[in-house]
């Protein structure tokens, strides 16, 4: 865990308003757990947290949507320039538990799940992806390249089913009542995944986003509430997460 300057070796534009920077990261790449993130200097006062989207040999990827000043700044970086990152940071997803496993990704929550699929080629994976529209439904071909056939949906029906990815998950549980879930996406999606998996009595790990200061647990900016009556009022996304076992945040019962 340290701050390093990594050289950009490739710049991809996988979809409108999305950029994937591939950087040379010998020392880092081997040690990364899917779900961990990098804290990336992006021209402003604060760094920007970005998940690792893939590892290819000594290279790693960061795939992001351009939403504001920081991601716009990063999107302008060229091959040969360096990016200043801290990492690897945080707690990633555990290895696949026995039985069927669904990767449930929403929008820019998809990249860490692709890295997961890449890391665990022999797991019994189903992939369920959702996004607001066609252009935001990223990495579908990457998953197909691994021989997986992701279930797809969009809010506006412009690709895959119309609806939420949690709808796909509900259906999936009908066929895989013994399944587990690794999910990443916006908070409302994660709440619903928590509800569904708790209702099914099945384990789930959830990857959260929160606005960050330090990225290393020092500033207490990035908190999400712990389960009522649980050990702690707040958990830090940067060090306690970003991936949490459902129970940590939602308790043992059905949320």
């Amino acid at each position, binding site marked *: *865990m*340290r701050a390093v300057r990594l050289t950009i070796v490739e710049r991809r534009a996988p979809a409108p308003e999305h950029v994937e920077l591939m950087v040379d990261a010998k020392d880092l790449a081997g040690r990364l757990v899917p779900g961990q993130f990098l804290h990336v200097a992006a021209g*402003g*006062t604060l760094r920007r947290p970005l998940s690792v989207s893939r590892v290819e040999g000594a290279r790693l990827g960061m795939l992001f949507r351009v939403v504001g000043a920081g991601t716009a700044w990063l999107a302008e970086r060229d091959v040969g320039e360096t990016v200043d990152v801290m990492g690897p940071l945080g707690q990633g997803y555990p290895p696949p538990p026995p039985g069927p496993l669904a990767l449930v990704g929403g929008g820019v929550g998809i990249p860490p799940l692709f890295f997961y699929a890449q890391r665990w080629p022999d797991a019994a994976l189903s992939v369920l992806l959702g996004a607001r529209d066609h252009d935001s439904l990223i990495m579908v071909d990457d998953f197909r390249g691994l021989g997986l056939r992701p279930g797809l949906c969009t809010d506006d029906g412009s690709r895959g089913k119309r609806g939420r990815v949690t709808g796909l998950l509900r259906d999936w549980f009908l066929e895989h009542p013994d399944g587990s879930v690794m999910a990443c996406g916006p908070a409302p999606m994660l709440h619903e995944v928590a509800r569904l998996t708790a209702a099914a009595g099945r384990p789930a790990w959830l990857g959260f986003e929160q*606005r960050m200061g*330090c990225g290393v647990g020092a*500033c207490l*900016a*990035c908190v999400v509430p712990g389960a009522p009556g649980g050990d702690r009022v707040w958990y830090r996304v940067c*060090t306690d997460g970003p991936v949490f076992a459902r129970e940590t945040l939602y308790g043992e019962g059905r949320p």
Partner: protein
Amino acid sequence: MTPVADLTARVGEIVLPNPVLAASGTFGFGPEYQSFVEMSRLGGIAVKGVAVEPWPGNPPPRVWETPSGLLNSIGLQNPGVEAFIRDDLPFLRALGVVLVVNVIGHTVDEYRRVSERLARESGIAALEVNISCPNIKEGGMQFGHDPERAFEVVRAVVETAGRPVWVKLSPNTDRVLEVGEAARSAGAAALSAINTLVGMAIDLDLRRPALGGGSGGLSGPAIRPVGVRVVYEVSRRIGLPVVGMGGIETARDALEYLMAGASAVMVGTATFGRPDAMTRVIDELPDALRQYGFASVAEAVGAAHPRGRTLEGAPDEY
């Protein structure tokens, strides 16, 4: 070889190897940044505010970036003084770095109890009394804006601390000199300035204040001119050493504070962008001192003060 500038800094009776400390709340309780920063090189560490009981803090989002600045609304989340002593102090003590414990409370009594409890512990160089946090008993009035209340709280801590007491000033008041004077007469050994400016950002999408806590504290380079002004005034008018902060990113920024009258400086927000910000400032300080003609930190302290002219004689503000 040119002689190496002497970086030794003195804050009252406390001697620091260099004038750069970590600012409270931005460096946790020490271990968080240890793989990014050479801890032993720091001039000192001011840890996150500690209260008599655990405080939960505010709902997220707790930070929001602004032009050259950062709004935060952590809400002084902390584990309470007992947990601090049990879980964090041993690590900090072992570092061998000058340790300043930031103290918070809702009432004079709460401040006193934290101070009393810490008095039984070794390895703490000074307490830093944070009097810019809300005083709930007094209906939201802040200790840091009322010289009489400031006097009470500082006296309570000084009576019990058994070590030097620094008082951290709020810039959100027109009475900063009165509050500083109250702290002095209550026995403070030094003042630290500035805490954050109260600010707010609106989340245009959500149509509400961006921070979960509504308003928050503004820090970072944006506030540096306010910090320099407060340090300049306070160091000239109150007979106490001042630890300056607010927006320091480089050795030049640190030197600006020293010349304005600070005996030492703290770095906060800059660490988030560059975890090695403090050691960079330390590394670059000798050159910066030399460039502007100073042989030591001590020489630079207050170098921008007029000789013999007081602020009263200065022209209107603008």
